[in-house]
């Protein structure tokens, strides 16, 4: 049997439901309260605007001592996100702090969509394109957003 859910996770989940962050949602699975279906809207004014991105988020046993595991499920053209949806973001790695939460992490990810950082790439090919021909890269990102990240009917 799994250990009872820590108070912290219960509180975070409640708050995500009761005071949702605009453009972000995170719903825990019925059978696993540590596993969340996440939805993040592309930030306005970015090349991901209008897109709705699905992610999966998992809180490991030693959360909040370690960061949540999080991954994009929707395909996205972004220099800091690879083909498997893994994200290169400092607060998910070295800069994680137990005082951070699911909501702050999701906000950071949304901010990352608004400010791609090709200098610290995870997806070399995309980052290269981003540096060499930004206009073209942004165009592709828009196309991918329209192709993969538009809400299903």
């Amino acid at each position: 049997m799994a250990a009872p859910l820590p108070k912290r996770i219960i509180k975070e989940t409640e708050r995500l439901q009761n005071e949702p962050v605009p453009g972000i949602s995170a719903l825990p699975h019925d059978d696993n309260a540590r596993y969340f279906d996440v939805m993040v809207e592309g930030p306005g004014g970015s090349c991901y605007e209008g897109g709705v991105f699905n992610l999966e988020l998992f809180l490991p046993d030693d959360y909040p001592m370690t960061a949540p595991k999080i991954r994009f499920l929707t395909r996205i053209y972004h220099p800091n996100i690879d083909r498997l949806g893994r994200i290169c973001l400092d607060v998910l790695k070295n800069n994680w702090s137990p005082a951070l939460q699911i909501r702050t992490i999701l906000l950071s990810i949304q901010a990352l969509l608004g400010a791609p950082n090709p200098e610290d790439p995870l997806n070399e090919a995309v980052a290269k394109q981003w540096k060499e021909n930004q206009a073209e890269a942004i165009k592709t990102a828009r196309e991918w957003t329209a192709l993969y990240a538009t809400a299903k009917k």
Partner: protein
Amino acid sequence: MKFGQEFQKALASTEFPEEWRGSAIDYKHLKKCIKKINTELESIGLDGETLHHLSEWMSPADSIQTVAGQDGKGYYSAATPSLAAVPEEFTPQLRILVDSKTGTPLDATLAPETRESLQKLAKHEMAAAGRREHVGSVKRPLDRLRRRTATEDTARKQSVSLEDARWVQVPLASAKDFFELLEPKLQELETLREAETAKLEEEIFDLGEAVENVVEPVREGFEARREVSYRDLYFWREMFRLYMEKPIFYSEHGPNGGALTFKEAHSRLEDYDMRIRSTGLLEKMRTPEARQAAKRFLDLNVDILKIMHFQEMNARAMTKILKKFDKQTRLEGRAFLRNLRTQYPALLTNGRTGTGGGSTSPGGFASSIARDLNAELATKVLGIVPQVEDWNCPVCYAMAWRPVNLGCCTSVFCINCIIKLQEEGVERCPVCDKETVLQANGRNIDFEAMDFMEKYFPLEAKKRQKFHDRAAKMAERGGGGGKHEEEKEKIPCRTM
């Protein structure tokens, strides 16, 4: 129902004290004034349509200075004591830019008779120019017009020598009446706001003391008395927690952040009243003093709501009557309102949003009343009963029991979380990022905070202590936490 009737009816209701009524805006009378202004304007040939043409020709942005007096100031200055020395100079006037040679108000669409009368006025104006001291205020609009003409209207520029253009001032006695009627009311409303706010602040302060008396847990002395007061403490905490969950007058966040309208506040107070009733908290309170203080708290909220309602209604009446004034006379009453905002800073709080974007914030003085009294209540009454959320550990979100302060920032963590962090080899403080975690030891226990929590959260402290004891037993295999366990043993548990 028309607003005028609605307003009169609300004023007549018994909800408001008799002495407030005299400060209310005299909506009916003001409406009559507007009618008189119109008659006056028509008598000099400036009927609504003519004025409309006149202002249409000018660009809407710097629409012709049909502003009475100097930069609109003349509206209320008639009633301002400092300017009382020259009152007759400040009769509101309609000002129209006219070519003094031809009498053309730079507008071909005016009726000939109007032009004639304006020409006469212009000549008269020139003769009186030496006497008047309006030159400074005349200059700016002229410059602006010159620029405008240069870019858009070169043909006209050649035919009309702008050097000859003059401001004609049409005195409007009825408009003066209008503002003389309106202005003192605003002063009265402001005085009323100040007086009522001061009264309510005093009540809030008194209530704060009363609440402190009934919730302050007594640690020494009679055991029975202590039992009573710390039970009550929990009732008060719940009562205030429900209040803060959905504040009545002011909302910190959400789409309707800021001061709430009377309507919203009213429904929130009703909602709160119902929730308090359903919990039966009032009946559970042990002492009559506690029950009385609780009732005072509810009454106080009703009183705040009342003055808010009164001010909001008057603000609406003022906005409506000025709108009517603008629409029917085409004089710019709004300039008057702008001036008022500098004179009564409290009016400023609703900024421009009150008039432009929907009714999310209450108008006029109601807004500052809501904000000020909400803040007073929060610090002087609600703050007396600490809420456990403010003492939660930022890592586990439970009360930070055996509180540890790392010395780098003000955050307080529970000892267990710090031990866990040390075991994980985390160096940096979760909140401020300084490398203080590994140096922490028994000396970092915050005894002051611990005392406070024991006093105000005895039940939570007990529960947390049990949890710790269990965790300590499980962790008896030693390791990084050993040192801290020793530390724990030294502390006598006063809540047990």
